[in-house]
């Protein structure tokens, strides 16, 4: 039996995400974001506070343990100002060292990695000093850290800049006496779309098969040996289609909202007690 195609009704399922091709939907999603902001919640919470997320290992998620460690983290944040920074931001860390005595140790570098949750949270800074690449791994909640400054607030194209090890040294060279660049409050965080040039192989990893967006043309630089080997290599490029993988490892929206409410409550209590006026939950992009 013939059915004219014109009679078929195309139903677009209601979605929560938006894309540039659908400006109408994008506008509606924006409305939702403002709703969150009214409640004082930060839309980019998982990016700004990766240390407050749940562990990707489900076995390690325990409400009581998270509550206790969150208490410690918030107490620490009341004593030291931990600014907003991302992978790709240029950060200066001043820490005290027992062997240096009363002298401070200050290190400036680009944040190449932020990993682990809770009190275990770590970040790595990278710089080139006297033509030698130096990476320093800091525990965010280490009490010997005196001061953390964000000298330049920006993001890069990737969430792990491990490829800077194999990049030309100028991409990870930063002046220790760099002037901090102020970020105008309320504006979105700029994304530096810089594509780095790699040194000639050998590399620490096979960057030509990695999905890093911040590297320029890895294929021409790769050695013929690995080019020949590509058809034998198991490339997990299908992982982006695994919709449930994100659910398995990331923390839930409910958890994020709960944690933000707890942080706000903590702030309020401390402000009411007249101890400090420092704010913990803040975002440069959604500043009022």
């Amino acid at each position, binding site marked *: 039996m013939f059915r004219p195609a014109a009679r078929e009704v195309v139903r677009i399922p209601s979605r929560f995400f938006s894309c540039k091709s659908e400006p109408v939907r994008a506008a509606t999603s924006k409305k939702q974001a403002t709703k969150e902001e009214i409640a004082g919640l930060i839309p980019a919470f998982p990016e700004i506070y990766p240390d407050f997320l749940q562990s990707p290992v489900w*076995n*390690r998620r*325990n409400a*009581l*343990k998270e*509550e*206790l*460690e969150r*208490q*410690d*983290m918030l*107490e*620490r944040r*009341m*004593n*030291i100002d931990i600014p907003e920074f991302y992978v790709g931001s240029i950060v200066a860390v001043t820490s*005290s*060292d*027992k*062997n*240096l*005595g*009363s002298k401070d140790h200050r290190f400036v570098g680009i944040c190449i990695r932020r990993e682990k949750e*809770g*009190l*275990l949270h770590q970040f790595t800074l990278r710089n080139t000093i006297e033509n030698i690449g130096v990476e320093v791994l800091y*525990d965010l*909640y*280490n*009490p*010997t*850290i*005196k001061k953390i400054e964000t000298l330049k607030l920006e993001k890069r194209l990737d969430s792990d800049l491990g490829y800077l090890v194999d990049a030309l040294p100028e991409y990870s060279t930063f002046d220790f006496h760099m002037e901090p660049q102020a970020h105008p409050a309320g504006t979105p965080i700029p994304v530096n779309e810089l594509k780095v040039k790699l040194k000639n192989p050998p590399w620490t990893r096979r960057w030509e098969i990695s999905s890093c967006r911040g590297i320029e043309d890895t294929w021409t630089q790769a050695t013929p040996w690995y080019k020949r080997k590509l058809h034998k290599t198991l490339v997990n490029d299908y992982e982006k289609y695994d919709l449930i993988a994100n659910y398995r490892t990331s923390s839930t929206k409910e958890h994020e909202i709960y944690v933000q409410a707890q942080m706000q409550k903590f702030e309020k*209590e*401390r402000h009411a*007690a007249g*101890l400090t006026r420092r704010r913990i939950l803040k975002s440069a992009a959604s500043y009022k």
Partner: protein
Amino acid sequence: MLRSLVSSVTTGPTSEWAGRILIANSGLISQQRGRRRTLTPVPWLPPVKENIPKTGVGMSQGTKNLLEQVIEKETLANSTFAHQSSQETSVTIGDIPETSRRVGLVVRKIGMLPQWTNEGTRILCTVLEVNENHVVSITSPEMWYKSSAVGKRKAFNRHGPMWRVTVGAGNDDPTKYTLAYRRQFAKAGIPTKEKLGCFLVTEDALPTAGQALDARHFGVGQYITATGKTIDWGFQGGMHRWGMRGQPTRRTTKSHRRIGSVGSVGDARIWPGKRMPGHMGYEWRTVSGLEIVRINVDKQVIYVKGSVPGDIGETLLLKDCLQEEKRLKSGPMPTWAPSLETIDEEQETEPEEGVVPKSLLFNEKFSPKLFRFTSPSIVFTDADAKKTAGRDKTKAKIAKVKK
């Protein structure tokens, strides 16, 4: 799990019935026969958690409501009774004789957290939750050894007669358990417990049945012994199970992780006890000499420096450490009770400027060497650097002359 907990604890950490590995005794290697681990409940113990009644099947709504009311009233009565009994018992903080053995706690491992010392060094701590511990029953040595496989020597050892104290942890829904299992809690006047563990206790340190056990049973700075089941790794190869080296990467095919030779040509057999691939983990292990660095009284949580056997979520038994230099010299005997709280409490002082009021914080006890997150960052002085520097290497090493 429940029965195996009870059984392994009554036999103590060096359980003889379960010994099966090669143990080096003064240079001699003797083989002990038996199984490394049992997944079935031990035969000599009465069944504790079987025939779980199907709740709600063939029950009218009225009966269900009535049952709920009864359970509610029972739990309330039990908890008040247990509270009263723990209030009434006489406890003291004093010297603990070397021969006395106190009761322990049944705890749950809930995770691992880093903490820092005032020196700035990071220590990884295990977080243990003490979940509503109550003494379930106390059995005299004459009684318990007769129904146990371990024999008279455990009950009447060189430290004197040992009572068996059963401790229950975690209140649970009583409808899940049999009458026989619930009866032991009804006798003690406490709510039905989820986990049980037993401890061998001397007569001078006996608590009363139905008494509540608190996290403050242990003190900060005290050393403890933790016993529990290790992580169940399943069937593992020789490299993981025994730490063998494996075989070279290059010029080797398909044998990179194999164990290699297993014996000699002479008698053409494999010696019993040869290390081979097999089931790894899920065995009773004891770690002693762990230091308690922090106790959260409000949440009943103990922070122990170092790691304990088992995965997160597993039940463990905590006891006093018996190593001579780490033994508990003085503490609450037989256990901590609410009547000691007034002694502990310090005099109320005027809140200082910039100090977080106590009402905003958890009631916590810290080891003096542990960094508190409420205090500002650690700042070192030149004196610290000098202390660590040692000898001044720019100058010659000269022996001190005795005068």
